[in-house]
């Protein structure tokens, strides 16, 4: 593509000489060191809060470790909770690369789940499970893609703010889901929890072999890697990065900004829709009101903490999953309310996002400054 010829693009990694490796390492170390420092600072602030309410932070952190990562069971617990957040985090991170703030991923999750469940209904017993699951995934992805793509479409062709439209669309999606699962799609046998007809056991998306974590985790990790490749290595991703930096410059360059906006929002919705399909096929077995569990909203936090980097979404989602997994133990052992983990998450996020301001301020991470001072 001609854009790359026009603009100089740095090679990601050059191994020609050892100092280049060192420089590369220094650049890569910056986000890791700053993020870890921010997490420590956030934990310190949270400790003060815990002392103020009369509990021991040491006990609390021990329990959090036990509950989140202290055993193979706890690790699997954290990973299970992280799985949907990988996909809903992408739903926010991808449009953010274009400068768009999508906060309505929840809508794509619930409608993706409904579409997947509805697509499976006529096929159970007709087609083999593997094919039905693929069709379910495609149905969920198309539905999610349409829903978030609509926000992109309205943004580009009608000038409607995508943050508001995606939020409104999420509320509308939840209403639609409730309408159909208590109406046309309701399984009459789903007595006190209106649901679609459940998938037979052999049609369920099972667990990853050797783990008590469903395939959603693997799907999410692959989706993050694929997204990273799209953004970092393809011409489309490159164009998106330019458009995200400056829309007018991108338009002057002749980039198809409209197609990029609609394409990226639709792709984002595709991932959220897939999260809904996984929720139906691997966890619930049917579409019901529990699809609106807030994964779409937590995805916003995941994406912002990961600085909209698809690969960084993986550790961030696992960290959040771990905090979430430890919440129960904190309630049971320390008698602290369930909101404790919300306070911790809020504190951590504020500090981590605050520390964005530190980027570029440390000489050791900036090889350009080494040369200048040398």
């Amino acid at each position, binding site marked *: 593509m001609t854009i790359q010829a026009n603009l100089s693009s740095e090679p990601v990694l050059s191994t020609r000489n050892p100092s280049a490796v060192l420089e590369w390492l220094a650049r890569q170390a910056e986000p890791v060191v700053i993020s870890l420092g921010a997490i420590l600072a956030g934990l310190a602030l949270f400790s003060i809060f815990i002392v103020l309410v009369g509990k021991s932070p040491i006990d609390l952190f021990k329990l959090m470790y036990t509950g989140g990562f202290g055993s193979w069971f706890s690790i699997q617990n954290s990973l299970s909770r992280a799985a949907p957040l990988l996909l809903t985090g992408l739903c926010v991170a991808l449009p953010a690369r274009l400068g768009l*703030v999508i906060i309505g991923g929840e809508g794509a999750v619930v409608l993706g789940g409904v579409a997947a469940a509805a697509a499976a209904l006529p096929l159970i017993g007709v087609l083999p499970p593997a094919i039905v699951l693929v069709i379910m995934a495609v149905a969920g992805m198309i539905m999610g893609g349409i829903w978030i793509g609509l926000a992109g479409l309205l943004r580009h062709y009608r*000038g409607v703010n995508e*943050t508001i439209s995606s939020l409104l669309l999420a509320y509308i999606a939840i209403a639609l889901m409730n309408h159909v699962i208590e109406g046309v799609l309701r399984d009459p046998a789903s007595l006190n929890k209106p649901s679609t007809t459940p998938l037979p056991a052999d049609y369920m998306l099972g667990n990853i072999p050797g783990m008590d974590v469903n395939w959603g985790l693997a799907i999410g990790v692959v989706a993050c890697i694929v997204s990273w490749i799209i953004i970092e290595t393809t011409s489309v991703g490159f164009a998106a990065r330019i458009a995200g930096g400056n829309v007018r410059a991108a338009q002057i360059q002749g980039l198809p900004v409209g197609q990029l906006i609609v394409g990226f929002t639709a792709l984002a919705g595709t991932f959220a829709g897939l999260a809904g399909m996984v929720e139906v096929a691997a966890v619930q077995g049917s579409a019901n009101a529990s699809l609106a569990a807030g994964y779409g909203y937590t995805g916003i936090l995941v994406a*912002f903490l990961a600085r909209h980097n698809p690969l960084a979404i993986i550790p961030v989602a696992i960290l959040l999953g771990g905090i979430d997994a430890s919440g129960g133990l904190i309630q049971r052992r320390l008698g602290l309310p369930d909101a404790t983990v919300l306070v911790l998450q809020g504190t951590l996020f504020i500090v981590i996002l605050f520390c964005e301001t530190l980027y570029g301020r440390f000489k050791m991470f900036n090889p350009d400054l080494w040369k200048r001072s040398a």
Partner: protein
Amino acid sequence: MEDGIGIWGVPLAILAGAIRVSTPFIFVSLGEAITERSGRINLGLEGTLVFGAMTAYAVAVMSGSPYIGVLAAMATGAIFGLVHGFICKFPKVNDIAIGIAMMQFGLGLAFFLGKPFIQPVAPRLPSISLGGWSDLPQVQSALTINVLFIVGGLLALALWWAFRNTRIGLILRVVGDSSDAARAMGLNPDTVRLLATAAGGALAAIGGAYLSLYYPGSWNEGISSGQGLMAVALVIFARWNPIGCFLAALLFGGAGALGPALQSVGVTQGYYLFYAAPYVLTLAILIATSSPTRALVGAPGALSITK
């Protein structure tokens, strides 16, 4: 059925609902309008609203006075705003992201500290009865109006006037349109935005106090169904105009009353879709009134969300 008012209940319910339900939207959107006029966006007002609801209720329980509760809520709301404003003045910090984090923090802290106040009953804010001219109890009830609603209406007018005619309004506008221009005029944009965010937080907390101390008048973790988040959206819908915010809040509140009212007169099928009416209506009006070619009228130039 002699006491029912039949189909007339629907428009009456929409009117009554608009008055009852809209007040939190009015205060949050007016607060956010001030903040956004200064060129910042605070997406975290949902957290401020819920924290304000908890504070107002808790302080009203402890002091026995709902007014002290409202004042305490305003103070905490201002603190939330100050924290947001302070953090966002540092370079590279994203105000939208901080808002989302503050929302999480505010919700968590409100739920954490609010546990002991779910059970006690707090004194309620009083209301004024304007329906004495009617013999119908339904009309009398619909026109039983809380003081905060009236304050909200007057505040919208006052802000509308102040944005145009006062020095503070001018300062807000200049800072909101361009940091550089503001500095050239000798203004410190960070200080102006800090104060504007604090004012926005204080107003949002009043919206929360209305929820917990008047309607529905109870503190629990489900007290808000996203009013703070929707109200932020209504500001853009209202084009940063305080009177527009007031009207948008009324429209949203009235549309929200449609679902229960229709069921009460026997239109019972598809109630989920009626419940989605406020969202569909807002989206439809947004689509109809937006334009891809011209910038949003009234949009502050420095606002990140409109770039």
